[in-house]
């Protein structure tokens, strides 16, 4: 009765870990992520077959790998989500140091796999993209620094986090990997925003962004061509974007049928950047709306739960993780429907990719750890008249 009226009792002394975890974790977000991963596997059956055939492998080779890495990612996610925020923070900061060094050493020891960008470490059984791990670790570290600056006589954490952020962006731009750089920058900006950035500064930054865009448009031909291509309503049906748009249109409401899609044969990135087009063609609008809804549930529920959070570190870290996760999904899908200019970015948990899966598992695991129900001093708030 009490639980029904006042919500779950957050913590009981001496309670075993698993029941406590199950009682306090955000089950909606958890199940959404699980379903997203399942959808990703399902789409992998469709989207990765052409790639496997091109590489002369067993048609479902990539599905098997995805399932293997996905299982690993799920385990990592669950384990991470069971940790206390303090433990998460410590591990994340350690991880951040490791990943930072790894990214910094990429130019020396990395491989580019002939794609023209130094992003990977080649291990015996596969490859690792350290920037995928750096992203969530940085978010947590930056949140810790920002929260520390809130303490009386605390360190100047905001400035330090900005310095770290710029260093990472510089390294990513040099790889080059503009997509990840933008995400890191975005994550930092969101946290700074929630941590209480002055309004004047925000407006000034918005103005600066517009000015910078204008200058880039008028000076950089490459940039201008991208924007013109985006603004042009006539999409050349022979480009990746054209194929993606065509696939969405072909799919209609219920899709052309499982395995009947054509776009996966024409798009080189069907299994990663344009997985949503494959989903739209084979399963139709229904599945696409499901995917969008699942991402929205994870992001919005996490944000709502974080609103109640008292601890500034948890609030900031959770916000940063949720927003980076959400914005990555939004950019990926926005490109496919031509709401945004072309930018290669994977759809978290759905797109194929070992590093991004495991890193995503870590990130969402940390997010779930941060959004777990905790005593937030509501009674005290009521007593002091601050309200909920």
């Amino acid at each position, binding site marked *: 009765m009490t639980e029904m009226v006042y919500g779950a009792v957050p913590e009981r002394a001496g309670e075993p870990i698993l029941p406590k975890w199950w009682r306090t974790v955000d089950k909606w977000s958890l199940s959404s992520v699980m379903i997203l991963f399942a959808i990703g596997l399902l789409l992998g059956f469709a989207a990765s077959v052409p790639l496997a055939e091109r590489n002369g492998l067993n048609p479902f080779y990539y599905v098997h790998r995805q399932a293997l890495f996905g299982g690993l990612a799920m385990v990592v996610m669950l384990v991470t989500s069971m940790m206390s925020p303090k433990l998460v923070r410590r591990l994340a900061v350690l991880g951040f140091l490791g990943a930072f060094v790894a990214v910094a050493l990429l130019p020396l020891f990395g491989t580019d796999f002939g794609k023209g960008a130094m992003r990977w470490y080649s291990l015996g059984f596969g490859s690792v993209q350290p920037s995928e791990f750096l992203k969530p670790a940085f978010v947590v570290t930056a949140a810790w620094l920002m929260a520390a600056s*809130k*303490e*009386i006589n605390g360190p100047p954490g905001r400035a330090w986090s900005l310095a770290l952020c710029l260093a990472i962006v510089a390294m990513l731009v040099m790889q080059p990997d503009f997509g990840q750089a933008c995400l890191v920058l975005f994550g930092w900006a*969101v946290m700074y*925003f*929630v*941590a*209480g950035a002055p309004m004047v500064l925000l407006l000034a930054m918005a103005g600066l962004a517009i000015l910078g865009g204008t200058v880039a448009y008028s000076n950089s031909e490459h940039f201008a061509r991208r924007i013109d291509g985006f603004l042009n309503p006539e999409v050349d*049906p*022979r480009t990746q974007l*054209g*194929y993606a*748009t*065509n696939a*969405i*249109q*072909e*799919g*209609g*409401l219920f899709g052309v049928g499982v395995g009947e899609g054509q776009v996966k044969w*024409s798009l080189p990135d069907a299994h990663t950047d344009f997985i949503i087009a494959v989903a*739209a063609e084979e399963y*139709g*609008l229904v599945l*696409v*709306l499901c995917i*969008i*809804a699942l*991402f*929205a549930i994870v*992001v*919005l529920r996490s*944000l*709502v739960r*974080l*609103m109640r*959070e*008292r601890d*500034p570190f948890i*609030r900031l870290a959770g*916000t940063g993780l949720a*927003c980076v996760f*959400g*914005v990555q999904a*939004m950019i990926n*899908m*926005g490109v496919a*429907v*031509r*709401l945004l200019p072309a930018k290669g970015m994977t759809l978290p948990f759905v797109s194929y990719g070992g590093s991004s899966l495991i890193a995503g598992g870590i990130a969402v695991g940390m997010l779930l750890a941060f959004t777990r129900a905790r005593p937030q001093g509501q009674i005290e708030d009521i007593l002091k008249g*601050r309200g909920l």
Partner: protein
Amino acid sequence: MIRTPLRPLARILTARARGENPDAIERENIRRRHEEMQARDRARAEGRLVVLGLFFLAGFVTIGLRMAHLSMSEPEEPVAANRSHGITMQRADIVDRNGHVLATNLETFALYAQPPQMVDPIAAAKQLKNIFPDLEEERLIRDFTGKRKFVWIKKRISPEQKQAVHDIGDPGLLFGPREMRLYPNGRLAAHVLGGATFGKEGVNAAEVIGVAGVEKTFDGFLRDPANEGRPLQLSIDLSVQDAAERVLEGGMRIMNARGATAILMDVRTGEVLSLVSLPDFDPNDRPRPAVSGDPSDSPLFNRAVQGVYELGSTFKIFTAAQAVDLGLVNPDTPIDTRRPLIQSGHEIGEFRNKNYGPTLTLAKVIEKSSNVGTARVAQMIGVERQKQFLRDLGLFDPTGIELVEARSGRPLLPRQWHELEMMTISYGHGMSTTPMNLAAAYATIANGGHVVSPTILKQTEPQLGPRVMSERTAAAARAMLRQVVAGEDGTASFAEVPGYEVAGKTGTADKPNPKGGYYKDKVIATFASMFPASDPKYVLVVTLDEPSIHAAGRVRRSAGWTAAPVAAELIARVAPLLGLRPRVEPGQRAGITLTSN
């Protein structure tokens, strides 16, 4: 907001007095202030988190709506990359007045070689020689083994030849797609169509350009993509043209002529329904222009519009018509035809030195073709009026028909035009024009006095120009011309075609000798006619170059014996094709009684 001091003096003093550590008070105040700050931060963060939440909600909803909108819209067919430029032919067709094709295009291939890629140049050259016997083997071997990187071998090859070359299997032998001009009717209307050849050539395509005839005149139109392949429609009637060519060819052979030309023209529109010039050629395989000899003997020479001839007595009707129009005479006026008529030391004589007696009526002058009588009439008209009238008839200028060759068909006029020239020109000597000029002038008489300009393009309505003689004059002239054919003394009695009322005038002029003077035994025989005489629809001009036929006991060269019967045969064949009904006069019935029971 009032900041509570961290170390309120009153409380510290009290605590000190009690012997407690005052730092505890400070710590408590710090904790309280920190809590307040956190609460403030949290309130602000709540608001900003709501903003973030709304941003994401809006973003996801927008993407969802956009997805829905896209998936409800019709997919666009993905266009495969292809380098062809649509299905419009690069050169428009040419069709006759009924839409039958006179010129079109055919897909074919050019053969070229890239010697550096050839496997076995010698063997390839040998086999090419077998396929194309006109190639020189030594030259091919020289080209293939030399330093050349690119050699054209054949401009057009047939599908069989292409397959044979393909079977050689040498990777250095390559084919370039071509569109070639095809004239499916062969020699038919060759001089009208002219011909086409390749202009700029590339491996993937070649430009086709017109070199003569309408192909050259309308080259811009035919190649203009804006016409979207709309054909060029000529005034030529394919079946009439064919009949005219066959008859004229036969007539030319029978009359032993070097060449011949025939023009059939609609008298109201100036449309040329058939234009024949013999000898002719096949525009699919256009001969090279002659480099030596008389260019007018070349098959490429269009006698109808390029040939400038003295057309002889056919001019007499112009003199007679002008005199009637001026009111000087009428067809029944007696004309002095006594010989000799001496002018400026030259004697005006009659054909074969005939003598037509002291007087003839004007109609008889035309019917019998009296030079003296016509010269007398010309004396009544005078030099200036004669010049003006002939100029009005268009006999002083090229005809302006849309064939490039026509520009060179400029009439030759005497340098001086005095009494003597006036007299000789009145019966068609001393001035040369093209048969096309003559046809246009006869069309003026035929259509009731209006100038028409000849055209090779189909017209939909009459193109009557300014009037140069009255309706009555034209009718009188037609009646006189009819008598030339139908009258008992007419010079063109062989031109009669039962039912079609042919009217016309013969003209036999001595052929000028390039060395000066005239040949004694070479003539240009012309018969200019119109039919049916009561309401002429068409003008036909037939000209034979150097005809001669052994008939009625001696060699005959006059137009009445040569051009007139050919014209008659032509009219007999062509008139039904033109939809003219013969006017059959009821003949003498046999002595039987028709009964009906």
